[in-house]
């Protein structure tokens, strides 16, 4: 529909010329402004991943500090107030600033590559989401470093988090951090859904979507319907604290349990939107290293979807000791046990794939096997605490701490490290050291189990969580010391990972485009991928395109070569339907995030900030959307 003469198309150019032209169209401009304006999904995803690992490092240091404090009875490494801030920061950071963002970010990086497109659906919204996330995380950590960190636990229960028990602004910073990160998370969810629905390469029908993309899609849907709950809750909390509303104030008609319902309606699915992408990694890695197609692909995908649905029906199992009606408790016990079924189906499919394949035990697969072992333990204690009488006994003890770390670290961090080893060659163009990798795995595996297994016993022996110390006459000293030694070993395994990455970036072996002989589309392009991902968008005729086409990849022609263009397809059949322009780099998402960020922060001090901030937010949003006359703004 462009005016005048026919636009330049890829058919008008030779191979080399086309590649140079498309690359320069999609390249992020040089310089600081260019860097800040980037809308390249790979750059933004990498920023997310690096930032999330930095926050993990900070929260990990916090964890080691807590372990040092608990290593011996009556220790004085940190005082009770700092300890309260430490466990709150540890949990909040690991959940909101590390686990959820990094899982979404791996999707942001690989979903477009795996479905054969050039960027995500809304690249500027993507950039905006990263800045919001960054500001939220930085705000929380600056507060902590100025001794103003939140200190009421990562789930910030009322009435403890209300002003009568929590003066100052500690809980407000927590609540606003939620707002920042949930804006980011929701934006990424919307982006992921639309990207997977509409931007798959021609021929990628539903049955040819890679499992990891399914996992990212299911996760995005869960985020879309779960995160509003915590936004509603944290907004109500901050309103109770700042403008004297009474949502959670029992004396004036409010209710503390309302907080718990809203929080856990989000909080339980949250566990699964950390876990489901992780199972996506596992289902991606296992076929490659077993050198055979996934056993039960359809069953695995259906299990992911089932887990997504079921995860919304479990939240009350966090509230078994609050005195809810018996019938309700029974329902949630049943649903909590039911969710073990789809997880079990997946585990059997993984085992069957490995059993019938020719496995090579490279580092990614080792971490996957470590995951299966640790996660099964976490899953079993999960079934145990789904039972009301047992949960009543171990509630708020170290048994629960052990359980949740087995599911979250065992169930998600092990697959994440596997994914780092697996995809690092694609992202950087270099291989990680296998020798270091194997050491990394064993140190991590031993350190992890040494840290967290003793906590089961400590919990059964009655040690409550969130105590900053215990007296010498309690029988907990030995196991706590063991756990602390484990924590130091486990922390060391992360240093090995980071060392391996740094070493490889300096002098790692060149990876080539497909070092593992994998089957999905991200391995069809160069390592690292060019700015446009694919100069010619591939055509897909199988679930395993690179195993079906070992010499040449079928591709399309007819795309424009004078603007950033993506192909939009039909929802189920992925038939080419539309050629849309994709937005070019812009500094405005950063400005919009700064305006929004300042408004959120300011609103902690005066509710009028929402009014004052509306104008700069509006201006930056208009700057963002106002057409600049580039070809990308038109159609």
């Amino acid at each position, binding site marked *: *529909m*462009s005016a005048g003469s026919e636009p330049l*198309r890829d*058919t008008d150019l030779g191979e080399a010329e086309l590649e140079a032209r498309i690359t320069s169209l999609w390249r992020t401009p040089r310089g600081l402004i260019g860097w800040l304006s980037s809308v390249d999904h790979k750059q933004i995803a990498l920023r997310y991943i690096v930032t999330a690992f930095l926050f993990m490092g900070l929260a990990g240091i916090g964890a080691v500090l807590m372990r040092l404090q608990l290593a011996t009875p009556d220790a004085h490494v940190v005082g009770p107030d700092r300890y309260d801030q430490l466990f709150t920061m540890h949990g909040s950071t690991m959940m909101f600033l590390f686990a959820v963002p990094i899982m979404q970010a791996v999707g942001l990086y690989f979903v477009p590559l795996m479905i054969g497109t050039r960027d995500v*659906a*809304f690249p500027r*919204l993507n950039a905006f989401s990263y800045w919001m996330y960054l500001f939220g995380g930085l705000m929380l950590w600056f507060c902590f470093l100025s001794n103003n960190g939140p200190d009421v636990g990562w789930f910030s229960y009322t009435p403890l988090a209300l002003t009568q028990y929590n003066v100052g602004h500690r809980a407000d910073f927590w609540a606003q951090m939620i707002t920042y990160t949930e804006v980011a998370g*929701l934006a990424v*969810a*919307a982006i992921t*859904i*639309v990207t997977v629905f*509409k931007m798959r390469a*021609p021929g990628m029908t539903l049955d040819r979507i890679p499992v990891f993309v399914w996992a990212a899609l299911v996760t995005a849907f869960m985020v*879309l*319907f779960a995160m*509003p*709950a915590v*936004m*509603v809750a944290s*907004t*109500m909390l901050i*309103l*109770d604290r700042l*403008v*004297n*509303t*009474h*949502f959670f104030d029992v004396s*004036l*008609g*409010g*209710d503390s349990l*309302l907080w718990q319902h809203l929080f856990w*309606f989000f909080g339980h699915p949250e566990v699964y939107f950390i876990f489901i992408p992780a199972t996506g990694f596992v289902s991606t890695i296992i076929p490659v290293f077993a050198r055979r197609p996934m056993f039960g692909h359809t069953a695995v995908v259906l299990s992911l979807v089932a887990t997504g649905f079921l995860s919304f029906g479990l939240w009350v199992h966090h509230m078994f000791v609050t005195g809810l009606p018996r019938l309700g408790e029974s329902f949630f016990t049943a649903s909590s046990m039911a969710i073990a079924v789809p997880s079990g189906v997946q585990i059997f499919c993984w085992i069957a794939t490995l059993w019938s394949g020719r496995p090579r035990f490279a580092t990614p697969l080792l971490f996957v096997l470590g995951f299966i072992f640790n996660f099964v333990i976490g899953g079993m204690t999960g079934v145990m605490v789904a039972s009301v009488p047992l949960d009543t006994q171990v509630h708020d003890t170290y048994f629960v701490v052990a359980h949740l770390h087995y599911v979250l670290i065992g169930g998600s961090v092990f697959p994440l490290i596997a994914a780092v080893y697996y995809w690092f060659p694609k992202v950087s163009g270099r291989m990680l050291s296998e020798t270091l990798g194997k050491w990394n795995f064993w140190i991590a595996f031993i350190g992890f189990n040494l840290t967290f297994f003793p906590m089961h016993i400590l919990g059964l022996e009655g040690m409550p969580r969130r105590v900053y110390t215990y007296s010498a006459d309690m029988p907990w000293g030995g196991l706590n010391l063991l756990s602390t030694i484990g924590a130091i070993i486990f922390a060391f395994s992360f240093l090995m990972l980071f060392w391996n990455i740094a070493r490889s970036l300096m002098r790692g072996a060149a990876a080539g485009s497909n070092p593992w002989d994998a089957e999905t589309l991200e391995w069809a392009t160069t390592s690292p991928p060019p700015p446009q991902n694919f100069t*010619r968008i591939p*055509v897909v005729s199988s679930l395993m395109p690179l195993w079906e086409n070992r*010499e*040449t*990849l*079928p*591709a*399309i*022609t*007819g795309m424009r070569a004078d603007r950033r263009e993506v*192909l*939009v397809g039909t929802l189920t059949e992925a038939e080419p*339907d*539309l*050629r*849309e*322009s994709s937005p070019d780099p812009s500094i405005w998402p950063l400005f919009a995030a700064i305006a929004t960020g300042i408004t959120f922060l300011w609103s902690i001090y005066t509710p009028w900030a929402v009014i004052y901030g509306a104008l700069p937010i*509006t201006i930056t949003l*208009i700057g963002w*959307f*106002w*057409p600049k006359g580039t070809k990308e*703004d*038109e*159609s």
Partner: protein
Amino acid sequence: MKTRIVLNVAPVPENSFGSRTLSWWGTIAFMSLEGMGFALAAGAYLYLRTIEPNWPMSVPPPDLLPGTLVTIILLVSVIPNYFLEHWARAYDTVKVRVGLVVMTLLGIAPVIVRAFEFPALRERWDSDAYGSIVWFLLGLHTTHLLTDLGDTVVLAVLMFTRHGENPRRFSDTSDNAFYWYFVVLSWLPIYFVLYWLPRLP
């Protein structure tokens, strides 16, 4: 990896409307998450109502007039909104300009009446939990009214500039009209909860 050409997509169009476009699906995604927010807020209202024997706690139910007036304006606005969407799909610049001006006015009107709705609740947000939740629900919907009004105003202005002739603007107009339906439809259950639920025995 080397490629071989198997498909030519040059005949595929560059502009379209509705579910064929990315932005329509983006709009759907945002409607879903915002709708979820509304549903949860309404759920919180019902939850608080369940545990509180007197509801509203200390005042009579809200005055019906301003809320009902907003409802009528919103329902009426659906008619020009329908035509605007239709004209956008026909790439009719003149009618789209008129339609956007009309929709801007029909966006401003409920905001003005909305200003009278808050006092009509008869309770401040800081009096008790009932006051808090009704202000919350009404505030949530007001935010939606204001954001879509802002969007409509910017689009209306754009339509009168040199950027207005671009096919993409017509698709934007169509998506904006689509979102307005959501603003109207999401109001109906909130209207029922705020104004009629407290009147039920």
